[in-house]
């Protein structure tokens, strides 16, 4: 039986140690980033370049996925609500679910997969080809030059992307509401905005600020710690995406509990 196998506990121990190591490394990188952010040179051009790569270039995929999520959410809710003749509440459920939970989390997961993986691969390649060492010997702090712009861009762009995702998801639900369930357009809009309160929107957006930092820091940490050439870059990229997904869901659970107990 696997519970009697000493290797089983060895594997668990190794995973726990890996996690503690990652947590320590990411925390240290976060601290160094915070210290270096308000120092010169500001590197505005690098921040804008990253913001474009992360924000503007992610818009199509985020829009597409959030539209489908809105449609799916409306259809799945309709399945229950039709039985209770309460279709009108679909608008409220779609709006609240999207702004409080699905919008922030789905957007964060898409950006982690798209941009987090890209950041790890880029920084990992720079590490194995000694470009990161070259930066240091040319008098530039690699954390200031590479990590700070990415963390700032992700922290700013993820909430903005999430706002778009919320709006497009609600539009997806609206289309189902008026064309499939024959709810009047004005009634659907009324139900959406009557139910939504600022708190719903804000709690969703506060989470994304932390998700943005998490994605950037884990991706940069994995990239800067690559060992072993192309294979190392591949492994680090996979690890970066997996760890970011786990941390986003764990952080989401933490924030949801926090808001539930202290803000409700």
């Amino acid at each position: 039986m696997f519970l009697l196998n000493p290797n089983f506990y060895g594997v668990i121990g190794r995973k726990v140690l890996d996690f503690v190591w990652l947590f320590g490394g990411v925390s240290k990188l976060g601290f160094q980033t915070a210290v270096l952010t308000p120092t010169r040179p500001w590197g505005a051009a690098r921040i804008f370049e990253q913001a474009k790569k992360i924000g503007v270039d992610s818009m199509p995929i985020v829009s597409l996925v959030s539209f489908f999520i809105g449609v799916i959410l409306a259809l799945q809710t309709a399945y229950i609500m039709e039985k209770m003749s309460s279709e009108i509440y679909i608008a409220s459920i779609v709006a609240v679910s999207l702004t409080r939970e699905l919008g922030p989390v789905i957007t964060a997961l898409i950006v982690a997969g798209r941009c987090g993986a890209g950041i790890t691969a880029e920084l990992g390649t720079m590490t194995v080809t000694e470009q990161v060492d070259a930066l240091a010997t040319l008098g530039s702090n690699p954390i200031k030059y590479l990590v700070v712009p990415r963390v700032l861009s992700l922290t700013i762009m993820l909430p903005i992307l999430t706002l778009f995702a919320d709006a497009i998801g609600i539009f997806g639900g609206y289309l189902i509401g008026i064309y499939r369930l024959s709810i009047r357009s004005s009634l659907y809009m009324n139900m959406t905005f009557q139910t939504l309160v600022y708190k719903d929107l804000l709690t969703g957006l506060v989470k994304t600020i932390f998700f943005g930092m998490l994605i950037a820091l884990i991706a940069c940490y994995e990239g800067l710690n690559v060992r072993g050439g192309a294979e190392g870059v591949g492994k680090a990229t996979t690890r970066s995406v997996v760890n970011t997904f786990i941390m986003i869901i764990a952080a989401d659970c933490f924030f949801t509990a926090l808001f539930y107990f202290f803000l409700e």
Partner: protein
Amino acid sequence: MAMIELTDVSKNLGGKQVLDHMNLNVDEGETKVIIGRSGVGKSVTLKHIVRLLEPDSGSVRVEGKDVLALRGKALSDLHREIGLVFQGGALFDSLTVGENVGFVLSEHMGAGQAEIDKRVKESLALVGLYKIENYMPSDLSGGMRKRVALARAICTRPKIILYDEPTTGVDPITADAINLLIDELHDKLKVTSIVVTHDMRSAYKVADRIAMLYEGKIIAEGTPDEIRYSHNPYVHQFITGAAQGPITDGQSSILKGIE
């Protein structure tokens, strides 16, 4: 006067004792070549001089300053006095050749675009390259990448240039051109240089003195002729490139595999 002094430097990397109480002095204006097998710690030695690595014990001094005690601006100033030419060039993929060469001028010295363009052109001309400022590093051959890396290293007119395997991976004619370039830069810019290599043709051509690194220590040092005619069996095996000898004794060699 010793420009670079490594005293009693030890470094363990991943459980392997790479440097073991190593001592190395490089005088001002001298070109010292460090030879040794791959993985013996030659590049690690260079990384200690620019503090990309810190020793477990021992001291590293450049121009009399303790490198390990430098912080912030003092460390940046040191970096500006040392140009390190990496083995693969380590050019920034996302920047053009011109931006790579003028990197320090634009990032740290606040130079105007006209001044940067002029210095980039001069530095590229010193390594024999013209009108390639707008190329991307991926458009260049291996030899050109090395020369651009050298142009980047000399753009701030450093007092010291460190070369990590400058002739590895290029054809013999390009390798000889790079050797000539190292000699020329030494004469024109009056720099102190350390060249890390296992290419003996290159070592004889550019060195004022050659030091051999073996098992974490400098085991022999002398002029190119002294090394060429050395009776040290380790040096002799290395410079003649013999598969059998004291360096490979006790190691699983290709020859043993064939037997």
